[in-house]
Structures are given as C-alpha cells and as structure tokens.
C-alpha cells in the first residue's frame, strides 16, 4: 500500500484551472453558479468551447477524440469545472450513451453519432424509465417491432431529462415481449421524428428539465439498434456501471460546499457556532467520500472489493441534500423566497448569491430517487456483498 498522491495531479489541476480562467466567460459562470437548470444557449456555447480545446469528452478514449486522461484526471477536470461554474454539458450523451456506442456499435454507428456529439452539434436524452417501470426498470413495456428495414416503436417514457433540447434519445425497448430482461434492446430514436410528443413536467423547484415522451408509431432505421437485438439490458447495465465510481458526485458536492461557505460568510450565519459545526461535519463527510471515490477508481488495483458504487451513491446523495438544506438555512429569512428562474431585474429582496438555492434544494430531493434509489442501493449492498 502506498497512499501518497502523485504530484503530477496537482500540476494537472493547475493546468485545468488556468485554462478555465481564460476560457470560461464570466457571465456564463455567474449564471451557472446560481444553480438553476442550465439554459440551452449556455450549454451550446460551452460545448463549443470545450470541443475547440479537445476536452469535450474527458473520459473518452483517445481514438474517439478524448484527451486520454485517467479516471482521476477526469474527476479533477470535473471538479475544477464545477468550482469555476461551467454550464452542465450533455451528460446523457457523453457519459452514458457514448461508451455503449463505442463498445457495441458498428463502425458506421460510431461515425454517425460520436463526432457530432463531441463537436457539441447534437444533444441526447436518456429514455429508460416509464410510468410503470421505475425502480423495476426491466418491466418496461415500450415495444419495438421490426417492419422491413425499420423498427416501429410504441410506448411512453418518463422523467426524460432535457429531452426537450435533445436531437436524439437512446431508449431501452422491448423487442421480445415474452422474455423479461432478455427481451430488451438498445435503440436510438430521432427526437424530432413524427410520432414523438414531448410533455414538459415542472419540478418542485419550478424548473423544467423533466419530460414525458410519447412514442406513437415512431419509425427508426433498423441499424439504429445498437449491438444485438434482445441484448440491450446488458448494454444498459454497462452504461450504469461505467458511472459507478462517480456516483458520489464529488465535484457537485464540492461546489455546493464551497457555495455554502461563501453564502454563510456573506449572511453572517457562519458566526453561529452550531451552524459552523454542521458545515464542518459535512466537510468531514465529503473528504472521506472523496477518498472512497479514489478507491473505487482503483478497483482493479485493489482499492475495493465491496459494493462501492452503491455506498458512494447513498452517501453522496444524502450529503448533497444536507448541504442544500444548510444553504437554505444560511439564507435566514430569505431561505423560503421564490426567485424566478432566469435573470430578471425585478428580483425579490435577498442576497444575489442565494437566488438559485431554493430551486436547487427542491430539485435535489430527486438525487436519492434517481440513478437507482437509495432503498434499492441498500438492497444491493445487503444482497450482493453481505449475502443476506
């Protein structure tokens, strides 16, 4: 065992930080740090800046246009991006769908979808969940039926984040209704195709990122199915496994903690001993979680042999909610004030740094629900490792 951190990572962090200082427009950073859902304009603009630098797909292999970083560099990059206030990028496309395409797709499929994604020209949505298939995703019922060299798709997807901005949706669909997990395929759907209807769902932070997607006789070319028919469940699992080491959302937690401290200093709440103790406790949690994340990344080098992804997900999401609650509290009498999304010059009173706090706090109730709820994660830990 040798637990010292290689100094090359500090140098890398400096490099990223220096670049961000130059490349990230100040007004864009200010908007992001308010913590409302990112606007599509900011996303587009930032994706283009990243693409020009060659850093759009930090975790992508070199051969598909990635910078060739190791996992920890990827996390350092994300941390610095979060702290600096870069807009959210197309996570569904970059982190979830792209690895499936380059692992299981044909050369033609890779060529069709990876370059436009990397260039920031196309946006993706993730269409897995359905009204009756949430935690029990394998019970999904959207059907894809082969018709000549096309598939015809019918069904309803829900909670589809940002699909109202998307050009493409990657979906799990049933191609063999008799088999359960084995009858599922991984397909790409054109979000603008005839038969696709998108209904916005407003979240309790009064923001719009969620949607319900109705697929009514939507046709896709047969070669928009990735890999083999009826094998999509395995691809979907791979996609979720890929994200495992990142599931504590360390970069987001770090940014939220940094913002909490700033806020509490600005409002004077930090003078309150009891409050400061709770912030300190959260910070201690975060430092342990950060190291657990490193262990997860070193899984193959003996870092972990336990269900680390589930533990990271549980504690990372709970921490995020705790930090959000502390931010609301730090705002004192302004904690419950609704500040409308997007900049207006007629905002209710209260410090500007607090404008997006409530909306974010509300929306983040979801972090213990999505990505495999915390109840489901605990069951995984109990069953897979403790053999209960």
């Amino acid at each position, binding site marked *: 065992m040798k637990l010292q951190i290689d100094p090359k990572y500090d140098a890398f962090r400096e490099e990223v930080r220096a670049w961000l200082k130059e490349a990230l427009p100040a007004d864009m950073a200010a908007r992001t740090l308010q913590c409302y859902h990112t606007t599509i304009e900011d996303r587009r603009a930032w994706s283009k800046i990243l693409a020009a630098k060659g850093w759009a797909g930090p975790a992508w292999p070199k051969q598909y246009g990635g910078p060739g970083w190791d996992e920890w560099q990827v996390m350092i990059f994300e941390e610095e991006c979060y702290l600096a206030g870069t807009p959210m990028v197309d996570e569904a496309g970059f982190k979830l769908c792209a690895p499936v395409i380059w692992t299981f797709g044909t050369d033609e499929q890779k060529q069709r979808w990876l370059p436009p994604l990397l260039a920031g020209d196309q946006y993706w949505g993730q269409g897995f*969940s359905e009204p*009756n298939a*949430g*935690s*029990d995703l394998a*019970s999904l019922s959207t059907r894809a039926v082969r018709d000549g060299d096309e598939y015809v798709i019918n069904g309803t997807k*829900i*909670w589809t984040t940002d699909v109202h901005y998307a050009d493409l949706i990657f979906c799990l669909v049933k191609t063999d209704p008799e088999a359960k997990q084995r009858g599922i395929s991984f397909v790409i759907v054109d979000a603008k195709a005839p038969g696709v209807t998108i209904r916005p*769902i*407003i*979240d*309790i932070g*009064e923001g719009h990122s*969620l949607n319900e997607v109705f697929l009514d006789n939507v046709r896709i070319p047969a070669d928009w199915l990735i890999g083999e028919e009826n094998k999509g469940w395995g691809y979907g699992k791979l996609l979720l496994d890929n994200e495992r080491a990142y599931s504590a959302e360390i970069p987001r937690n770090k940014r939220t903690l940094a913002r909490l401290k700033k806020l509490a200093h600005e409002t*004077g*709440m930090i003078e*309150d001993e*009891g*409050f400061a103790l*709770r912030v300190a406790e959260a910070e201690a949690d975060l430092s342990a979680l950060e190291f657990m994340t490193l262990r997860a990344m070193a899984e193959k080098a003996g870092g972990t042999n336990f269900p680390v992804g589930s533990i990271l997900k549980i504690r990372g999401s709970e921490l995020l*909610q705790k930090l959000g*609650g502390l931010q*609301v*509290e730090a705002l*004192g*009498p*302004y*904690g*419950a*004030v*609704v500040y409308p999304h997007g900049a207006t010059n007629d905002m*209710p*009173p209260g410090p500007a740094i607090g404008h997006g706090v*409530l909306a974010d706090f*509300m*929306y983040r*109730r*979801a972090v*213990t*629900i*999505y990505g495999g*709820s*915390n*109840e489901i994660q*605990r*069951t995984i830990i109990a069953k897979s490792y403790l053999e209960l």
Partner: protein
Amino acid sequence: MDFALDEMQTMIKDSVARWAEKEYDFETRRKLAVGNGFSEEHWRTFAEMGWLGAGLSEEDGGLGGGAEESAILAEEFGKVLLLEPYLPVAVLATQCLLGTGHAGARELVQAIAAGETRVVLAHEEVKAMGVLSHVSTSAGSDGSINGVKTLVIGAPFASKLIVSARTSGEARDQSGIALYLVAIDAPGVERKDYRLADGTRASEISFRGAKGELIAADGFAALDRGYAHALVNLAAEGVGAMERAMWITRDYIKTRKQFGRTLNEFQVLQHRMADMLTELEMTRSALYRALGQLDTDPAKRRLNLAALKVQLGKSARFVGAQAIQLHGGIGVTEEYSIGHYFKRLTFIDSVYGSGAQHLKILAKAIQAGN
C-alpha cells in the same frame, strides 16, 4: 386533563374539514397559489364561521375559545396547506395586540375577528437570527419610524401593520421596544411583495420616517405573547400537514406496483412509514405540552416552546422528505400534491426562529444551570 375534543371543539374541527374538502381541494389551491395567493371570499367565510376568533373570548369578538380551539383549527388548515394568512393575522397580530392592553388595540382585535380588517406584525429583521428581542428599527421622539422589516407574512393583504421599533437601548435589549400601528399605505412605508416556497405571500417593508400610533411603549411582553401563540399554532398546522402527507403516502404505496407487487409490501418502506408516524406523534405530544402551559410565566414558556420548535422542525423535515422519497419521481413534480407538503413542512422549520436557533435557546438555558 382531557385529550378528547368537547362539543364545540368537535364542531370547529368538523366545520373546517367540511369546508376544506369542498372549497380547498388540491387543484383549487394550486390555482390560488400561482394566482395572487389569497381569496377574499375564503376570508369572508372564515369571518362568518367565527374562525378568525376561534381562540378569542366573546368580549373580544370570538367564539369564547382559547389556544386549544385555535390550534384545532390550525391543524385542519395545515392539512390542506392553507395559503391565506390565518396565522399571521388571526393569531400572531391578534395575540400581540391583546398583549399590549391598549384600548384601541382591543377594538382592532374585534374588527379582525369580524373580518373587517387585516393586520400583520412587522417585526422580523434580517440580522435577528431567531432572537426575538432583536430590533434595530428605530422610533424617534416624534414617533417617526426608520428601519427595514423582512418576511412580513401576509402583508400584501393587510391594511395595517404593527411595527416594533426601538426607542432606547441596544439592538437585542428586551426593554426599549415600542409598538406602533402604521397604515400599510402611510407615507414613508415602502413595500416589496414576494412569494414564498409554500405559495404564501410576504413583504419586505422599509420605513423612512413613517408615522404611527403608539400602542405599547414597552412592547416586548406583547411580542412574546404573539409569538408564543403563533408558534403553537404553527406546530398545529405542521401536525396537520404531516398527518395528511403521511396518509397520502400510505395510500400511494398501497397502489404503486414495482417488481410485481405493491410498494407497501417492502418492509423497509413499512418501517419508514412507522418512523413518519412516530415523528408526527412526537410533535403532537410536544404541542399538547406547550398548549397546556401557554399561560405560565414567560421564561418557562419560552423553554417549552423551544422544545416544541426543535421537535417540530426535526419531524417536519423528516416527514416531508420521506413523503417525497417514498413516492419516487412523481414526488418531485409540481403537478402532484406531495411536493407541496414538503415545501410547507420545510418552511415550518425555518419560520418564527428555526429549529436550530431554538435548540440554542435550550442549550443556553442548560449551560446557565437549568
């Protein structure tokens, strides 16, 4: 001691419940919440039914009840997440006015109970941090008021304000706080209205040389009384909101199916709901305790109320959060009811001095040898 409701209490409870069921379903409330957050028609009903004076003696224009009656009403209002400022007007301002002992204030209480006027208390300041005696707004010898009050809940619907202003001493002294009645549209009063997460409305109000009528030269005791009553009613509202949120969740998990069975079959969710009920009943117990001792000496009352607020905040946050959690995705949507219970319950922890600030009051008393 008797925990059963008497005839009049039962009548109050039933009549509010009936009204709420008919007039205050979730969709109606939702429209009101994104509209102006207030209905004159509802307020008229509250006055006609005697609800605005539920906790008042008959000579003060009430039904002859006390704090218990008011709390019973507040609990029912809590179940439907009432938007109208019942608590700020009919409890906080009303009890504060009564606490002044001023003749004109007493007449005003009757007018409030009759629904003829609405008065709210403008006391909270940004730097107060839960300290009730914090007043940096000042009043000169000519009675002109200068300063800023924040989070004045219900102010957009009020015609008069009770304003606390300092005539002597330091910002947190209990003595030297005077209370004035100021017309909402008086010269030198500037109001910025806004919406709170739970759909209620509040204002930040600045006073620049505004003139008011003095109703208490030394007003801390009246403020203390007002907030004591407001806090127990807030807890009652919280109990109502928690209870309704709990049953909504119970019904939901009994119908929602995943993995081939309804969610209520999963033991972890059963236990979670058992914890929700436990939290609810802990708060209800603390509420009853505080209600029964509302008229004891103020120092003792303060500690009872602090214990209540600590429990209330903890329970409200737990029940609200778990109610959403057990719903899954649908719980975080505006179009479904449970998220709105979460908002109200979160806000209940932060208003009138947060749970954390009240915990400090308790801790200080223990350090002082209590």
